[in-house]
């Protein structure tokens, strides 16, 4: 479970980027976080990843209390999440297999387990035949699928996708989003998608939290991208 309790964030001590957020995301939920540029979506993602600390309020993810968490615990928090970024963030000098297996190596998993599990996840994202390719040899959609496989390989409970379709064409965007919806439906993963892609949000009819100027403007289940923003 993820819970924001009266969370505010300021970088300079004066202007609040996020103000008094109260959000509760239950295990297994699928949530879109939407809003225009500067609404606070990126800061919210940074708070979830504990890249930034909350200025006021409480932020709890499972058993981690992020507002008072020690730096040394941050890696362990991040291991409970799989993160997918707009720019994929793959290791350019590692192959597809190595990129995915690296997430397991970080956790100190055995090479036997890595060798048996990574192909399964490459198959899940439809990249079994590309395991020896380097990211530069793949299309944008394929690179995002590698990033997704990497995010999933450690079987995290939470998937955070920050503008996952921002760098890929509409057809592939739909594929990626369908993959996330399937993961949510079949495996019960909590999925949080930060996006500004109106058509995708409207298409899937999931819970939509709309941010505007750092405050929650709306929070609707089966919602649509707010027409007014």
């Amino acid at each position, binding site marked *: 479970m993820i819970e924001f309790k009266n969370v505010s964030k300021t970088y300079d001590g004066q202007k609040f980027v996020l103000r008094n957020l109260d959000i509760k995301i239950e295990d297994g939920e699928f949530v879109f976080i939407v809003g225009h540029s500067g609404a606070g979506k990126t800061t919210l993602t940074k708070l979830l*990843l*504990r*890249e930034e600390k909350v200025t006021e309020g409480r932020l709890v993810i499972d058993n981690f209390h992020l507002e008072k968490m020690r*730096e*040394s615990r*941050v*890696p*362990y*928090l*991040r*291991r409970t999440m799989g*993160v997918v*970024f707009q720019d994929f*963030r*793959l*290791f350019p*000098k590692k192959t597809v297999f190595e990129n995915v297996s*690296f*997430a397991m*190596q*970080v*956790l*100190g*998993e*055995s090479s036997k387990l890595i060798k048996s599990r990574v192909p399964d996840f490459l198959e899940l994202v439809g990249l079994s035949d590309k395991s020896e390719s380097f990211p530069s040899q793949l299309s944008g959609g394929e690179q995002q699928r590698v990033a997704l496989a*990497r995010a999933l390989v*450690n079987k995290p409970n939470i998937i955070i996708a920050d503008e996952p379709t921002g760098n890929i064409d509409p057809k592939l965007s739909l594929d990626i989003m369908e993959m996330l919806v399937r993961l949510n439906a079949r495996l019960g993963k909590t999925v949080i998608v930060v996006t500004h892609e109106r058509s995708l949000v409207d298409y899937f009819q999931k819970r939509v939290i709309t941010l505007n100027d750092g405050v929650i403007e709306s929070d609707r289940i089966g919602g649509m991208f707010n027409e007014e923003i």
Partner: protein
Amino acid sequence: MRKYSLTTFIGQGFIGVFRNGIMSTASILVLMSTLIVMGSFAALIININSNLDSIDDFNEIVCYIKLDVDQARVTQIGEEIKKLKNISSIRFISKDQALKDERARYGDEYSHLFDDYGEGANPLPDSFRLEYKNMKDVDILVYQLSQISGIDKVKNRLDISKNIAKLKRVISLTSMWLMVMLFTVSTFVIANTIKLAFYAREKEISIMRYIGATKFYITMPFIFEGLIIGLVAGLVACFAQWYIYTYLSAEIIKDYSIVSVLPYSSLSFYFNLAFLGAGILVGVIGSSLSIRRYMKV
């Protein structure tokens, strides 16, 4: 789940060195050059000290015997001197020998100056030339010699010996400071070179952080990378220093026979040890300093 293994980190270190070939090569070259500069400087200092050691024969004292002392007493004085501590050698120079030496020193051109100092008119005294073992106790020795009856004057070159010893101390201290400075500067140069290498990999490090890699996990491969770079630079520097030293010492001996140069074999063990040690140390410290700034969560 298993613990991280050392071989994994070493393997990742090697992969890092090869995959970032250009920056690794730059780091190796910078470190190697610095080690050779430090090595050459050390070799120069060692050889200067060695040459100063070899002109250490100023540890000589001359005891002039009074002119009216008979031959039997002169022999006795010799025996008394031999009994003193801190004497390494003793040589008797008779007054006739002293005159002969003086005449030879002035050469044929001025030998007529000594014509008047024939049999019975030789103004030079008998003397003992002796060498001492330890400069520290030389004052005691001079005092003891001056107390022997029949000895007229005791002359020594203690001032020159003391100056040489002082010079050696100054050279040692200066060189030590210069080496420390060179080492410090080298560490920063290497740290900057490695920092440049890491800068290019900032994205890679940030990905590791998002995946949930601990600081330890992120740092270790880079530390091993620095270690490998240091080791390779140290090894290459060992061979380069051997070649440079051997070549230059042959040239110096050829042109300046007065200067003695220590054979490289007598220095190689220490040089190799220092190069490999310093290479690894600088590589590891450089990596640690460079990686630190990327470790903010």
